[in-house]
């Protein structure tokens, strides 16, 4: 039996997985939009986004729009690659679970 892949622990958390999946579908997203889509609290969302940023999976940009601060997040190519690998690993694990 071939070795089963390990799931990337940075992405495996449900909120981080949701965030990365959301960001994969858009060019960039504002903090408040991500909060509304995930229903998360400011503190938790900020902490999870920071973990993704530290891993190099998301890039952050802070700017002012009409004098209001805006924090924009976008997925990096490393993040896209990591999410693709994660989905492949999930499918492989599911296939193995069905076979056993």
């Amino acid at each position, binding site marked *: 039996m071939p070795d089963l892949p390990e799931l990337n622990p940075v992405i495996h958390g449900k909120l981080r997985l*949701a965030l990365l999946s959301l960001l994969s579908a858009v060019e960039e997203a504002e903090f408040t939009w991500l909060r509304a*889509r995930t229903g998360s609290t400011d503190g938790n969302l900020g902490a999870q986004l920071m973990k993704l940023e530290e891993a190099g999976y998301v890039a952050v940009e802070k700017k002012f*729009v009409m004098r209001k601060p805006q924090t924009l997040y976008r997925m990096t190519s490393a993040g896209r690659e990591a999410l693709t690998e994660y989905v492949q690993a999930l499918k492989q694990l599911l296939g193995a679970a069905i076979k056993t």
Partner: protein
Amino acid sequence: MTGSAEEQELKDRLRLIENMIIEGQQTTQRWGWAFVFWGVAYYLAIAWSTLGKSEWAWPVTMIVASLLAGILVSRKASKHPGTTIGRAIGAVWIAFGISIFLLLCSLGASGRYEPHLFVAIIGAMLGGANATCSMILRWKMQFACALVWWTSAIIGCFGSETAGSVAFLLAIFFCLILFGIYCMVSESRKRGLSGRNRDEAHA
């Protein structure tokens, strides 16, 4: 954790990824208000030009409506993330707006404007814009709107002035007002579904 529980957990993760990607892609589709807005603007311009007999009715209404729409769109755009599909659809409508504005202003200024031409041009161009968007979004309902606009353009070319005007008024009602309300209802339903996705992200 048992084998079946692990399997369920993995399936939940896959479903979460799928739902969130759909959620992100759906952000481009919340534009139902814009159709209703332009439908009302067209009706106002028609009422003003018919009852008030003013040649300024169309240019003034359209410029004011464009400015208002621009403000509303920029406010909404700052709250919603950009997507490639959203940019493509935005480009179609911006190009349509510029083309129709230049064409009708030129026709008005040159004195070559006439009602048949007006219905034919707006019908054909709105048909083209709706058809392009329906192909990008793979949305049959919007393609049906394109067919209605094209039909009004053909009636504008071959029919009497009254027939062209009636076809144009009906096309505005079905393809802007009614279609816009339909979009807004389906958008609010999708918002309900996205509430369920939020719960999944926290489960």
